[in-house]
């Protein structure tokens, strides 16, 4: 048992598992390039409500979610909502094809190496992080089903109503 425990500990040290980002915590300082090569920084949106959506073209629910997030973004951008799509396709062309089919107006950044999903320790694909005006995570949305939308929209609306 002791040996087993030591081994487990050694393995843990060898590959430090990123800790999942939870409600009430500050998210990792996401920085990544968009299609135009501009750096998008999560911290630049402090004061706004940010929804960070990790997605990939190969993931069905991710694709299903994109038009919904676009709709929500269009509806509430004026009230201070920002959506940032973080694409984790290893091939940019796959992402481009998916976006051509379902265009979005919110910024999409690319992380083909998957380093930010690692930092956030995503529980699922897709995962969305709702970050309040104070920069603190309000809600972690793992997976996507169309039935999830009313509850998610209510949480976004609540976050928009909070003072920074």
């Amino acid at each position, binding site marked *: 048992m002791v040996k087993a425990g030591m081994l487990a500990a050694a393995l843990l040290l060898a590959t430090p598992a990123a800790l999942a980002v939870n409600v009430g915590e500050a998210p990792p300082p996401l920085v990544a390039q968009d299609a135009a090569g501009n750096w998008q920084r999560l911290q630049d949106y402090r004061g706004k409500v940010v929804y960070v959506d990790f997605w990939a073209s190969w993931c069905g*629910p991710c*694709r299903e979610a994109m038009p919904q997030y676009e709709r929500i973004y269009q509806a509430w951008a004026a009230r201070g909502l920002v959506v940032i799509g973080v694409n984790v396709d290893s091939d940019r062309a796959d992402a481009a*094809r*998916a976006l051509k089919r379902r265009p979005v107006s919110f910024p999409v950044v690319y992380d083909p190496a998957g380093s930010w999903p690692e930092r956030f320790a995503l529980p699922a694909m897709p995962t969305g992080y709702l970050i309040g005006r104070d920069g603190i995570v309000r809600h972690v949305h793992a997976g996507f089903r169309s039935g999830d939308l009313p509850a998610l929209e209510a949480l976004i609306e609540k976050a928009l109503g909070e003072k920074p």
Partner: protein
Amino acid sequence: MAAIKNSKALAALTHAALALPGVAAAEVQTDYLYSFYQEKDTPGSQTSSGQSVERYQIHSHMFRAVMPMGENTLGANLTYETMSGASPWWVQPDTNGKPVNVMSGASIRDERVDLQGTWSLPIEPFQAAFSLGYSAEDDYEALNGGAELELRDDERGLTWTGGLGYSDDQLKPEHGTSSPNVIDSESKSTLTLYGGAAMVLNAATVVQANINYQRGDGFLSDPYKLAWIGGSTVADSRPDGRQSWALSGKLRHHLASSNAAIHVDYRYFHDDWEIDAHTLEVAWHQVLPDQWRITPALRWYSQSQAFFYAPYYQAARSDGFASSDYRLSPYGAVSARLDVSKALENLALGAGVEWYDADGSYALKSVDVANPGLVEYLSFQARITYRF
């Protein structure tokens, strides 16, 4: 303690028949397949008349539509086939004792319509699918139903699946020149159970293992076929029950360096008619630029004979069984196919050809006397997929 998550895999049915890029779960998708199937003529050396006989020709049309409706997904499958040509009627020895076919004559002409519906929905913690189907020919009618469940364990990279199906079939053979004394009507039923697990080995490899059990009850003989016993013919007669087990394993491995996926499928089959069979198929799915894809594949099959089978009989068996159906004979078969597809925005097209040859010499164990009715065929398919 593993997180058991259900997946939308069953509900989504989003699987593009021809690999359309980026199909989302909420899209309606339709597929159509046309196939032309042609068996090679039976040569004169293998018929009692000494003349070559044209065998089966089949035109098949298959339609599929999948409609997601919220958490539910509805699917429909329609198959329409027309068959014509001759089929081995019985086998008898020629003057040297070599088995030769007596063919049915080109009297067979039939069509088949098959309609299947599927309803898929989440039933926590499972994803479930229910199916109901009806198939009709001039001389055959079948009603079938089934339920399948899937359970995903993402933490361990495992997906469990299981299913239960039942088919109730009615045979109403037609009386004709090649079937003057055929039975009026009979029935049979088939129960199918399967269970299996798929496991993710690494980012590029996944394997699946399955066990399948089938139990047939009722009239399992072929109403149109005869067997030759010491100079006269009797009706094809088989046991009224059959149980079979199939163990199968599948591997899918992606080779990033070639941008290709290799598929290996193996199945071992055994039934209580004492047939043992092995099936091995290897396919190479090569992805090419501009959404083109080319897939060459090879398949090998081998089976041993049913315990009551003989090409012909000198004397009746004590149990009364008799069948000279080539499908119960010992043989092997090889097939090679090539498939090409191209995906566009909302449309995908595909075409393929398969050559299949059954022969005693391909069998795992040496076959003393091969059935003269073994088939060689060519089939051509064209497919189209469209999403709305």
